């Protein structure tokens, strides 16, 4: 595989670009805030359902898994970072599968094994995964540390943490033991369905964008924005940890 650095020199940094970065980050997160504040938890009637469910409920758990993934901005942000420079479908499938294996493992083991982890810390690590991937996309590791960490391994390992994040959300509810295994597997399948749907949308947008000359010019700035989002997630979750505790 040959990697070719584009011969197009990128424009020099200018204040307009930083303004663009700042405004985009703010707007993106204003949009997130306008949604139900705990969009990353399970809320409202879904919470009520989970509290009282008895026995196997494949359909509802599958739906909840898909819904959780599609509204899981931190998971989606990481995925955007992962596939940002993956042009071949083969590569996309490989990396997404690694992510899937990671998060499925910890989701299943976490809930069924009753592994308790502080949800704020886990979500902060998930936010950090976004920062990491954005930094990687900006070639930061090569520039600052002189080496490229094994990308596939990183995606797998961060996938483990994403899965813990999914597990802690479910563990907040004393889910009935009755049918738990089948329900969690259904939830996991739902997560994959949701991931597939979200990725399809993201890939379509990315593929279109890649045909435009602006993609190469703005790739760097976009990853800086992604890093900002990652920092926001980390800050939000760590604040929650210190202010609200576990």
């Amino acid at each position, binding site marked *: 595989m040959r990697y070719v650095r584009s011969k197009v020199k990128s424009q020099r940094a200018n204040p307009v670009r930083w303004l663009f970065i700042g405004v985009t980050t703010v707007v993106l997160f204003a949009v997130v805030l306008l949604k139900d504040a705990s969009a990353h938890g399970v809320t409202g009637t879904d919470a009520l359902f989970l509290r009282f469910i008895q026995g196997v409920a494949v359909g509802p758990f599958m739906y909840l898994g898909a819904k959780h993934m599609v509204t899981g901005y931190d998971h989606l942000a990481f995925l955007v970072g992962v596939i940002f*420079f993956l042009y071949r479908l083969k590569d996309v499938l490989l990396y997404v599968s690694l992510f899937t294996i990671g998060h499925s493992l910890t989701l299943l083991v976490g809930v069924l094994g009753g592994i308790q982890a502080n949800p704020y810390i886990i979500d902060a690590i998930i936010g950090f995964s976004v920062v990491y991937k954005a930094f990687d996309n900006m070639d930061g590791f090569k520039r600052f540390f002189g080496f490229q960490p094994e990308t596939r391994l990183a995606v797998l390992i961060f996938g483990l943490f994403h899965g813990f994040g999914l597990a802690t959300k479910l563990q907040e509810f004393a889910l009935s033991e009755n049918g738990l295994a089948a329900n969690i597997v259904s939830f996991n399948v739902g997560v994959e369905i949701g991931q597939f749907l979200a990725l399809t949308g993201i890939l379509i947008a990315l593929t279109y964008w890649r045909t435009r000359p602006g993609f190469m010019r703005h790739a*760097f700035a976009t990853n800086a924005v992604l890093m900002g989002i990652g*920092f926001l997630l980390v800050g939000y979750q760590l604040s929650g940890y210190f*202010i609200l505790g576990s």
Partner: protein
Amino acid sequence: MIDAEKILPPTQAREKIAVAAGAALLVAGLVLVVAILPAEYGVDPLGTGAKLGLTALSEAEQKAAALTGGSTVSAATVVAAQDGLFKQETVEFKVGPREWMEYKYRLDKGEALLYSWKTTGQVNFEFHGEPDGAPSGYAETYEMKQAATQASGTFTAPFPGIHGWYWENRENREMTITLTTAGYYNLSHEFRDGEAPKNKMFK
């Protein structure tokens, strides 16, 4: 034509990456302190949350928590003396097919109620309380179940308000709900779809 499977933008200078990362960190920190912390946690170090009206968001949540009063019954309320008369009642409600109704008592914080109800058919029910001062329709759920025919127990109100049951007839025929209670209540309300609330005073 570029013969490669992967095309990447030119790698930037170290300084540029550092500046970009720093800017990202700065903007994230600003957004957090200006908007997110005040709105989500009520923490407002720069006072911007108050100016933007965001602290109202976290205040609403805190108010709701305060109204429902932390729900721990302290040792002092093991005995809760009552001045009023001891009341008992047994009431029957007829509920049409697929219809719902509510029956609730006005109770003070710490006030106890003994209850036992049964139905002639299957109901979905929710035992809940609406705190005084909360926005209309806001309620704390104590117990919620599908396909039940009875429930009995004792209840101690965690906050002042109206506390009671929502019953929904799951079946296609009329059913009767029989409720027996004992307590120190003075007022109860009956709510039905499309009807004015019925209030009952106990002397």
